[in-house]
């Protein structure tokens, strides 16, 4: 056990200062305003500025496009960018897919895309979900049919967040419809030029996409891993997204407030605390009311619980915490909490109003909380698999 303050060497202190300066320069109010407007989770200038410093893959050696950063420095970078609300959804999906490209891609493919990933010119999005398959990822129906040295891909994907800003989709296709559902899948790093991208907007304000693959032709070199063994290829990125233990254990052991999805609730509590500490014209402060104190303390406890949680449990706990905290703090703060960013009288620049909407989505990202409970019941508790028969 160790929760001590980490001694920072000079280099790391300097790195930290550099990161803060970077955020001030590149994560400007304009960038944030644009992000609140577009919800795209991406800003090209910011992304390329990260690439220019080697911060897209910070722990990689400089000669490979990284910054030679220590894991601790990389964690500082991520925490600062997150605290600054930098729009980095596409950075996340790109990083998530990269190990699969490195593991399964041909040398030719890697040579073609990896330097661009590091520089920021090449980005990846996730092409799993379809209109008829969400949490049940392996039920994908998008077809890939071999035609000589090419594949013909036909199908439709939902929720391909960032597709409009990416060059490739990490695409799940069905190559053998006769095989059991996990045995007939093949993965591609599918170029997006030929695909048709249609925007979808969310309650949380994010932009995501439907992507139509209408008989597009993809050379075989974009295939990742063996034909019909796509599930194996997919598992790495999927487990990372599902926060399975092997991944979290390798992360730098830094106390991250709020856990996986709860960092936005941390800011919600700060907003509510600032409100509670403000005196009304009669000099009364909400924070002196026992009922208010108890609810703020409960929110702080909820956030701390999410902070210490980990793995799939952390996914569920931090998501449901954010939903609960958003709802209760909004109630506590009252009518002005209804006003969104941009309204003069909004509390905390409308953060609670945003959080209340945004938090809902976290219960679905990368599989619903129900799926994560299944994972915990089956893989951690050894309970029998649930699989209902239709009525």
């Amino acid at each position: 056990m160790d929760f001590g303050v980490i001694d920072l060497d000079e280099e790391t202190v300097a790195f930290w200062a550099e990161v803060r300066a970077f955020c001030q320069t590149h994560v400007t109010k304009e960038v944030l305003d644009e992000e609140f407007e577009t919800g795209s989770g991406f800003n090209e200038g910011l992304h390329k500025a990260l690439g220019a410093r080697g911060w897209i893959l910070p722990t990689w050696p400089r000669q490979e496009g990284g910054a030679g950063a220590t894991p601790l420095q990389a964690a500082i970078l991520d925490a600062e960018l997150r605290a600054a609300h930098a729009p980095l959804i596409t950075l996340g999906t790109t990083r998530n897919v990269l190990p699969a490209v490195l593991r399964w891609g041909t040398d030719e493919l890697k040579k073609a895309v990896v330097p661009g990933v590091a520089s920021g010119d090449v980005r990846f999005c996730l092409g799993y979900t379809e209109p008829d398959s969400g949490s049940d990822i392996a039920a994908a129906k998008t077809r890939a049919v071999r035609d000589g040295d090419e594949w013909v891909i036909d199908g439709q994907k939902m929720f391909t967040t960032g597709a409009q800003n990416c060059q490739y989709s990490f695409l799940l296709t069905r190559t053998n419809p006769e095989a059991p559902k996990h045995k007939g899948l093949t993965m591609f790093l599918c170029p997006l030029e030929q695909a048709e991208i249609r925007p979808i907007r969310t309650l949380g304000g994010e932009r995501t996409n439907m992507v139509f693959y209408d008989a597009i032709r993809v050379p075989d070199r974009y295939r990742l891993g063996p034909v019909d063994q796509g599930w194996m290829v997919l598992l790495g990125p999927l487990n990372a997204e599902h926060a399975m233990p092997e991944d979290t254990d390798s992360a730098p052991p830094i106390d991250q407030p709020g856990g996986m999805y709860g960092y936005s609730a941390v800011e919600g509590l700060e907003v509510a605390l600032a409100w509670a500490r403000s005196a009304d014209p009669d000099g009364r402060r909400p924070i002196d009311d026992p009922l208010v104190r108890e609810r703020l303390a409960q929110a702080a406890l909820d956030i701390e619980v999410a902070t210490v949680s980990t793995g799939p449990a952390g996914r569920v706990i931090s998501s449901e915490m954010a939903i609960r905290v958003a709802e209760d703090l909004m109630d506590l703060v009252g009518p002005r909490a209804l006003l969104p960013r941009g309204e003069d009288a909004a509390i905390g620049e409308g953060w609670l109003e945003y959080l209340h909407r945004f938090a809902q989505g976290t219960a679905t990202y990368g599989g619903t909380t129900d799926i994560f409970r299944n994972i915990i019941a089956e893989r951690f508790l050894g309970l029998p698999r649930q699989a209902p028969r239709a009525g």
Partner: protein
Amino acid sequence: MAEPISAPILRRADYRLSEEEQALAEAFSAFFERSCPSERVRAAEPWGFDAALWAELAPMRPVAMGLPESLGGDGAGLVELVLVTEPFGRSVAPVPLVEAAVAARLLAAVATAAPGGPADAWVNQVIDEHKVVTLALQPGGGPQLVPAGAVADAVVGLLGDELVLGVCPAERAARRPRNHGFAPIAWCDLSDPECSFRPLWSGPSARAAFERAVREWKLLMASALIGMAQATLDIGVEHARSRVAFGAPIGSFQAVSHALADVAMAVETGRRLVRKGAWYAAHEPDEDVHRVLMAYRYATQTAMTAATVGVHVLGGVGFTVESDPQLYFRRVKGWTLVAGDPKAALSDIADALFGPVAIAK
């Protein structure tokens, strides 16, 4: 003040609707279902008002029905009004029905108890011209967000011990903030000279009438919330029946079916709380006021849970703006928080049931 419970209480517990009540509920259900599909709700975003819909609704006299016959109303009461606001909530119609109905009843109370003032004319305008009067829910001066304030022809509120009515000037847009629930709320200050608030009635009776009006708002909103919860439940059930995952309709998974069952239980129970609250408020007003507060508190929780479950059951689709559950999700919070923290109802219930707090010795 009543003890919450003592056994046995010999009261009826008959929640069934009479034939007339049933007909009324069905007529308004049919209207909102026919006239207000979700496309129309979306079309009224972000400002939350559809003047044409209000005009279509007017011939059914949803506001006039709650006023006494002596003033030109139809002599119905809260029991009937909750049967109207439930289908209204089910469709989240972009019309200020709850506010208009409640404020009109308050004006009617003034016109009855203290005739000869401006309330008389406003009652007529409400009935004949379908004017919208709304209620400032917070007593006293200072800026407050008033529900339906952005579309109301007048605002009634309580300033000190005085009921006042004002007409805000034309540059209303500046007072109309964008908001979570896409509701036509507006900033209003009862002490703002620009709004020319005029006294209607004063004294303890005026204050009591105002407080009753706020409770009536909570009651009618509670019924609307139950309607909203029913709607998201229906959407979720429909989806759970047809959507297939892992080889079965998702409604066959208890994670889904039990969440929906919990909502169904709360909706049906909440509806009964509302009806019981309405009956008491209509037949034994100013007694057992905790019933309305209980119905309101339970309905806010039920509707919020229902909306959250609705969004969740629909999965990724539920989180898109094209889905209907999110319409409800925004409005459950957006329509109610304007009345302040819904959990504060518990303290009000305590006051009603347990009496006031003793002064510290």
